[in-house]
């Protein structure tokens, strides 16, 4: 999954014949999940909502790569298609997947609070607009606000070697919330860009 890039084209071979004729694009890849958008949403409406044991293929450096997993529609209303690895879980994504997002974030360390903003955000951490005046490795308590949400994401973090980076040390609940947000944000951005391209054509 590390080899997947945002907006990359992927395709499937599966026992479901209709699936293999649809092109898909990756909108986000987090841990064992790749969030996908069909090139033509109308083509995907006839697919079953859950397709186990499918093989997702894509090109990387001129070579074909295939991953075994399950393709499912998590939310019909949101068109939330996701491919989840079920085969070799060691292939889970370890490389950071970041979205460009300017979000207000408060960092508390040693009783002092720094208000700043993110420049990018992922499940693993974020890059800050202003580097905190803290040494690399300093633990911080982060309160990150997300668009559309009253309640902030609260997570422990560590100031990175490059001091404009904070690595989150988040529990499963926070990690899941961040992953859900990153996927939803990328999906909305993808659809917005597609709609604008259609308008311009």
């Amino acid at each position, binding site marked *: 999954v590390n080899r997947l890039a945002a907006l990359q084209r992927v395709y499937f071979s599966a026992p479901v014949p209709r699936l293999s004729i649809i092109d898909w694009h990756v909108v986000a890849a987090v841990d064992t999940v790749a969030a996908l958008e069909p090139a033509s949403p109308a083509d995907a409406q006839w697919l079953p909502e859950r397709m186990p044991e499918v093989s997702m293929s894509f090109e990387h450096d001129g070579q074909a790569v295939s991953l075994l997993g399950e393709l499912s529609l998590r939310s019909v209303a949101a068109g939330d298609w996701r491919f989840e690895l079920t085969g070799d879980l060691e292939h889970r994504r370890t490389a950071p997947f970041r979205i460009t997002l*300017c*979000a*207000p*974030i*408060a960092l508390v360390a040693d009783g002092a609070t720094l*208000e700043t*903003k993110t*420049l990018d955000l992922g499940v693993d951490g974020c890059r800050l*607009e202003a580097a905190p005046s803290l040494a690399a490795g300093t633990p911080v308590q982060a*309160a990150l*606000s*997300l*668009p*559309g*949400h*009253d309640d*902030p994401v609260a997570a422990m973090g560590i100031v990175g070697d490059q001091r404009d980076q904070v690595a989150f040390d988040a529990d499963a609940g926070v990690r899941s919330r961040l992953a859900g947000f990153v996927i939803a944000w990328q999906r909305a*951005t993808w659809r*917005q*860009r597609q709609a*604008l391209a259609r308008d311009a054509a």
Partner: protein
Amino acid sequence: MDPSAAPTRPSVLVVEDDDVVRGATTRILSEAGYSVAQAANAAEALERCERLDTLDLLISDVVMPGPSGYELARRTQELCPEAAILLMSGYTPTAMARHGLDGEVFRLLAKPVGRRELLGAVCALVGPGTPGEEPQP
């Protein structure tokens, strides 16, 4: 016809760090007849303010790299006291207040902002883009 007698179109400056949102907002307003300039951040916006002959309306995102939309709005009021201010944000007022991004009374639209809502808010502040015409949904 004397060109100098032609009614002027309201001038609008759109400030937004997301290029997709900025492009869409600019296009909607231009199609509605407004004279639109755009900037990706507050510093760029202030440079444009200084070069514009007139500015009728500043439309700005609140949370963006560099100075916030509120800081930009205050500075714009000093430079162009006649300009109306319209802010937009995807963050809730509660979230923005938590980070000190509030305090002034400006019209605030919640993003995503639809075409009808945007044109309605702009028309209410500076009138229609084409004199005599109301914005079409």
